[in-house]
């Protein structure tokens, strides 16, 4: 088969600094063009747990997860890692109303919050950015590996590599989205449990799915787009949206921890103000009180007391 060479000498298409709406530890000007907000919709009721999304993710991002041992569950690897950006979390749940087993398989990964806790906590300018289409991306050149993003994230997503000491997570395939493609996981999913499009489209799609589930006995089916983090750009359709925690501890009402808010918010300014005040107060004291000097009297008394006459 004839394969033409890839074009050379042309700029690689992708999002640029002009598309940023948020940048960690720094500010960005209002972008001139606003991209349409995108979202990935994960319909848990359609998931068959095949892990094609995991394989596609590994392949597209060229990561190399370690071979691990069997943990007595279908879940593999045992957790998200710097090399595994998405993970099928399996839960066998017995519905107390019907006394039937339900597979609650949640594809875990970055939720791409509108108000990202990782970005708020990050101390390194430009290590975490948010594009105007809602994607939250880690810029590894600027990452220092401190792990503050781990503390900022309400979903326990970022992982720090022990190899290069940088943080890793799902990019929502920002490099694919930039050229009009959907994320690798969505492309690989055989049951259309993962769809990708504009956020409005995905909400509309979710609404039809919720209606369908309601009609099939799932009275509490609903969309998971938590308002506590300003909504997310990865959303779930849950059969039991009234209790997200049964899906392997998906937070019921995620928001940036108040500890992180205090640490990264008012606390910063209060601390700097106190240091500044102490420095100014010391200088003022020096000016008004003058140096505390040893007088001639002190010297004479001191000499007399230590009496070299002995």
């Amino acid at each position, binding site marked *: 088969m004839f394969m033409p060479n890839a074009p050379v000498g042309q700029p690689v298409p992708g999002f640029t600094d002009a598309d940023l709406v948020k940048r960690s*530890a*720094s500010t960005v000007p209002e972008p001139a063009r606003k991209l349409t907000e995108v979202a990935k919709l994960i319909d848990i009721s359609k998931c068959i747990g095949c892990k094609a999304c995991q394989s596609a993710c590994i392949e597209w991002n060229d990561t190399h997860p370690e071979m691990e041992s069997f943990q007595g569950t279908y879940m593999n690897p045992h957790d998200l890692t710097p090399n595994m950006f998405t993970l099928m979390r399996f839960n066998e749940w017995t519905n107390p109303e019907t006394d039937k087993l339900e597979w609650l398989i949640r594809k875990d990964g970055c939720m791409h919050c509108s108000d990202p806790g990782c970005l708020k906590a990050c*101390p*390194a*300018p430009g290590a975490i950015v948010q594009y105007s289409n809602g994607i939250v991306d880690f810029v590894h050149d*600027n990452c*220092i*590996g*401190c*792990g*503050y993003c*781990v*503390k900022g994230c309400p979903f*326990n997503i970022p992982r*720090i590599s*022990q190899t290069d*000491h940088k943080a890793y997570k799902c990019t929502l395939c920002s490099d694919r989205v930039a050229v009009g493609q959907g994320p690798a996981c969505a492309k690989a999913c055989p049951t259309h449990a993962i769809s990708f499009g504009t956020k409005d489209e995905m909400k509309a799609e979710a609404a039809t799915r919720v209606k369908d589930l309601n009609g099939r006995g799932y009275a509490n089916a609903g969309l998971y787009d938590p308002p506590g983090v300003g909504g997310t750009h990865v959303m779930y359709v849950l059969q039991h949206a009234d209790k997200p925690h049964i899906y392997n501890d998906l937070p019921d009402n995620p928001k940036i*921890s108040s*500890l*992180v808010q*205090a*640490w990264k918010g008012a*606390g*910063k300014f209060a*601390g*700097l103000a*106190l*240091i500044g005040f*102490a*420095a100014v107060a*010391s200088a003022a*004291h*020096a000016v008004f*009180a*003058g*140096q*505390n*000097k*040893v*007088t001639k009297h*002190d*010297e*004479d*008394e*001191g*000499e007399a*007391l*230590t*009496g*070299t006459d*002995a």
Partner: protein
Amino acid sequence: MSEALRDTDRLDPNRKIEHRTMVQPGDAITPGTAGTPVTVKRYGPLARLNHWVVAFSLIALALSGLALYTPYLYFLTNLFGGGQTTRWIHPWIGVLLFVSFYVFFAQLWRANLFNRDDVTWVMRFKDVVAGNEDRLPEMGKYNAGQKFVFWGMSALILVLIGSGIVIWQEYFSVYTAIETQRWAALLHAAAAIVIILIWITHVYASIWIQGTMRAMTRGNVTAGWAYRHHRKWLKQLSGLRRKTAPQPNTTERTETAKHLGL
């Protein structure tokens, strides 16, 4: 217990404690040679070395910590060779500070125990700030302010090493829950601010009180300084000196040795 010691106790029950808490091993009056003033030895070479190791690590920690504390000061990471280096070097300097400070602590803690005079000193803080030392009680080796600095640093360094280990991502992040790490990060930042405030006070006091800095450079102070600021300490030293037989100046033979307080 020997008869002799019991006798001393009966004569003056406070004496033994006062000596232990005010005069430290190595403190001594050094007669002036050839027209130089009488000096009082306050810190030996090892104590001074330790002090400066603590001082430089504290400053390095403050600079590298503040760089990650606020984006306005992130440029300070350049002093350490970039963000990644700042991130890994900060905790190791912390370990150095912890170890060297607690060696220092072992040398100084006895002389920093609080006594009744400290209460009076605190009550008359206005006179302290105004420099009216004649209206304050005579002080031992340390006044109440110095003791607050000492105990404040001791406590905060424990808080900082403890919370610092919890947020030491590379080695210890797997041992604690993320919620615990959030608490630790907040506590670490708050404790760091307080210790920087104490540090500012400490440095300012050493500049404001003329003739103090030489205690940590040469190791000694003038008799006049000791009389003005730590009279009780000086009185006890001279009392001790009279009690013991006059010692030949074996170590202060040369001007250089005297200058260095060796």
